[in-house]
């Protein structure tokens, strides 16, 4: 699998996700500068990393969504290239229209960095193939704007098409208000596009993909991508 990581000015999880990808692929990851206008032709996966692109000024992800490389990312995504967008990346691709909805300020307005539990809602995609539906995984969040919002119609569409990938839950897998760290509608932590080739999620799977850092639940996502896309 050949993976590329988009680097915006202000991205700061670009190296982290590259490291996690390399751990699973055993191959170097290509870093792609936001000013570039095309992507390597043989990319199997585009990762849009976390961070504070353009300082997260104006609205998170808004300015990055308009950078030259995003036009190309959209084109590739339309052709079926897998896109994994984490945290700020998720904000960028919703702003770019690759996924519906918006990520608003957390309900208590503060930045939150902590491990959360996620209920796996899908195991059919290239991203989630190594999880089972109903699995409870532990992955960190680190954001101030992760409160997923979409209108009723879109939510209905996401739910009925099974496009919710992960939901915030407690350690027993119960999807409760108390387990919702940011106020997201329907406890949504991550969603797919219609074809399940694009995944946007607020939690950082790359942050717990190494046992030395206290957890490994994120690793299965990278391993799954390698197996599916190899």
């Amino acid at each position, binding site marked *: 699998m050949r993976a590329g990581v988009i680097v915006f000015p202000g991205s700061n999880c670009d190296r982290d996700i590259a490291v996690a990808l390399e751990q699973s692929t055993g191959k170097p990851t290509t870093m792609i500068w936001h000013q570039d206008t095309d992507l390597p032709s043989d990319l199997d996966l585009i990762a849009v990393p976390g961070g504070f692109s353009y300082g997260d000024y104006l*609205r998170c992800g808004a300015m990055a969504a308009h950078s030259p490389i995003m036009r190309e990312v959209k084109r590739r995504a339309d052709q079926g290239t897998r896109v994994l967008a984490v945290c700020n990346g998720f904000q960028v691709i919703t702003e770019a229209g690759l996924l519906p909805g918006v990520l608003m300020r*957390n*309900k208590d307005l503060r930045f939150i960095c902590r491990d959360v539990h996620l209920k796996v809602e899908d195991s059919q995609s290239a991203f989630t193939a190594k999880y089972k539906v109903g699995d409870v995984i532990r992955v960190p969040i680190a954001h101030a704007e992760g409160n997923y919002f979409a209108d009723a119609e879109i939510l209905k569409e996401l739910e009925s098409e099974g496009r919710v990938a992960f939901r915030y839950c407690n350690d027993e897998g119960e999807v409760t208000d108390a387990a919702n760290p940011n106020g997201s509608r329907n406890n949504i932590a991550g969603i797919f596009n219609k074809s399940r080739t694009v995944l946007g999620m607020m939690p950082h799977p790359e942050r717990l993909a190494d046992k030395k850092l206290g957890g490994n639940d994120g690793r299965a996502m990278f391993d799954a991508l390698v197996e599916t896309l190899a």
Partner: protein
Amino acid sequence: MKAKVHITLKNGVLDPQGKAVEHALHGLGFPEVAGVRQGKYIEVDLPKQKDKAQAKADVEKMCKSLLANTVIENFSVEVVD
């Protein structure tokens, strides 16, 4: 020419910031506050533009393409000299 842009959340979109501010105002001794909505106010300087209508059209384009997220936000543009 200068454009004054107001960006506000659409009705029906929950405004966590406004809610929090309202709550804080209650705590500060303003119980009469019945609602707070927080939006953005942006001033765009266009010193070379002499045509008011054109300025307005341009800034509206800026709003649609960047300044506002029309999924959740409304905007209004006013151009002044």
